[in-house]
């Protein structure tokens, strides 16, 4: 049996959790879904539409808001009772916060950020290595259950198998004793002045731009294309462009007609924010950069030689 730990916020199931259910369904093992916290009853009712044998909703004192201590204790109880062969979870920020702790608590192995499952006995899992320049097939050893987390976007929600009737929902009250984290309500920083999500064309810069003095070159290209200027995280971390122009898991998620990546290697944290673009162009001097896996058009070359020529060609 595969136990899927689903994530919910105010009763709304996280989209990536549906993907984890799809991953579990595609192994042909029976699937049980568990969801915790305030709102878990509403989320469980939605999750019951999937073709699964059971949905478990956990609530109780200490689980009103997400905390690593509270949710680890609650899930540890369910995993210990159900004895699954695998536990599948979407690799969200919340999962990164509690899942390694949960596996360590139960002294079981956890493999994170997987992108595919390879059939066989035992199952093997595909995951990126070295900033996604390489991929590895990994087998998990030691006693079950084995915990596996899946990168967001690795499975398609529209491949979800739905049941002919809703799956039974079981409500469980968890005994959570000590919660050391005291969370305030989540908040957003001041409203973003730049809405990259609406941009038709985006020119985005990465580490390859090398120095802040070179940003105007990218800006000139953006202007010639009537595009917005954006960047990967390291550029914003360094303060070369404001945080509001960051594309990626910690910035904005964009889907323009054209995404032109300059000196961007294509680390997954960036890719999740832009892979929905219709046409992707990459210019990078490293011909093996993972961004070329994703690009429709690529130029393996020095951006400082190529970009001025592109600007000239656009103006010609």
């Amino acid at each position: 049996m595969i136990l899927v730990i689903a994530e919910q916020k105010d009763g709304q199931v996280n989209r990536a959790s549906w993907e984890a259910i799809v991953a579990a369904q595609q192994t042909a093992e029976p699937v049980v879904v568990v969801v915790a916290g305030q709102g878990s009853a509403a989320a469980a009712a939605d999750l019951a539409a999937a073709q699964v044998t059971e949905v478990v909703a956990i609530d109780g004192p200490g689980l009103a808001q997400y905390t690593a201590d509270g949710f680890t204790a609650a899930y540890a109880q369910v995993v210990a009772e159900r004895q699954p062969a695998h536990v599948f979870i979407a690799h969200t920020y919340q999962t990164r916060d509690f899942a390694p702790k949960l596996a360590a608590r139960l002294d079981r192995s956890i493999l994170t950020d997987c992108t595919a499952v390879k059939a066989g006995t035992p199952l093997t899992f595909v995951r990126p290595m070295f900033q996604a320049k390489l991929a590895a097939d990994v087998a998990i050893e030691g006693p079950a259950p084995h915990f596996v987390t899946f990168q967001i976007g690795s499975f398609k929600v529209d491949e979800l198998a739905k049941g002919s009737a809703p799956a039974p929902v079981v409500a469980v009250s968890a005994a959570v004793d000590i919660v050391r984290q005291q969370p305030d309500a989540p908040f957003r920083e001041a409203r973003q002045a730049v809405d990259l999500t609406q941009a038709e064309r985006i020119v985005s810069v990465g580490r390859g731009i090398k120095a802040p003095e070179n940003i105007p070159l990218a800006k000139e290209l953006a202007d010639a294309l009537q595009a917005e200027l954006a960047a990967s995280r390291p550029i914003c971390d360094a303060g070369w462009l404001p945080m509001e122009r960051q594309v990626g898991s910690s910035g904005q998620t964009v889907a323009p007609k054209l995404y032109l990546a300059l000196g961007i290697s294509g680390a997954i944290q960036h890719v999740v924010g832009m892979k929905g673009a219709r046409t992707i162009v990459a210019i990078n001097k490293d011909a093996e950069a993972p961004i070329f896996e994703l690009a429709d058009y690529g130029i393996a070359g020095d951006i400082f030689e190529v970009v001025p020529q592109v600007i000239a060609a656009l103006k010609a």
Partner: protein
Amino acid sequence: MKIAVCLKQVIKRDSTLRVDDARTWVRDADAEFEMNEPDAYALEEALRLKEQHGGEVIVVSAGPARVQTVLREGLARGADRALHVESDALAQADAFAIAGALAAAIGPEQVDLVLTGLQSDDQGFAQVGVVLAEKLGIAHATIIMEVKVEGGALRVKRELEGGWFQWVGLPLPALLTIQSGINTLRYATLKGIMAAKKKEIRRVDAPAGVAPRQKIVSLYFPEKTKQTRMITGSPADAARELVRVLREDARVF
């Protein structure tokens, strides 16, 4: 405040990687290494906390003899001393093995705070910090963008997804995994480099009998899932062709 910072030595980001003959790891015998970038931000945060609140910063690394280079670099940037859990097997170990090794070094030190980067540039598990907190029996919070020490406890700003954040209070001792960009990195001064030569790197025995929990069956360059058209030629020719295909084929403007 007594702070331990975990530093991982990883293959340099822009290295050309080659898979080894066993097809389970990269050829790293002649590779260039560097400090894992998120860990550098964790070290910087520790140094700033020490400047504000006093105390001691201990840098810790688990790996073969070569990881002393990053420990020495940490000392040059301002850490007070270093712990090295030396084992060749830890060079490509899973997160549980590394967390176990780090716990063996940090546990007896009775520190107030442990900082790690949020993940490593090589295997990228994003596990070691959280597993280490569980092994040490201390509270943790992940992907931290700001740290405040208030009345013997912490208030930290956690990064959530899609531009959301959250302040979380937690008691000391605690472990935090630090997000890149939390601060601006300092680099070692000549004075720091000279001072580091006199600072102690103490060796700690790796825990015995830790069986690997995960096995890389095969390491390879990912197959292309998308048909990429690589445009070749001189910069001028490639640029003209790119503009033509964007206008005529992709029709993006």
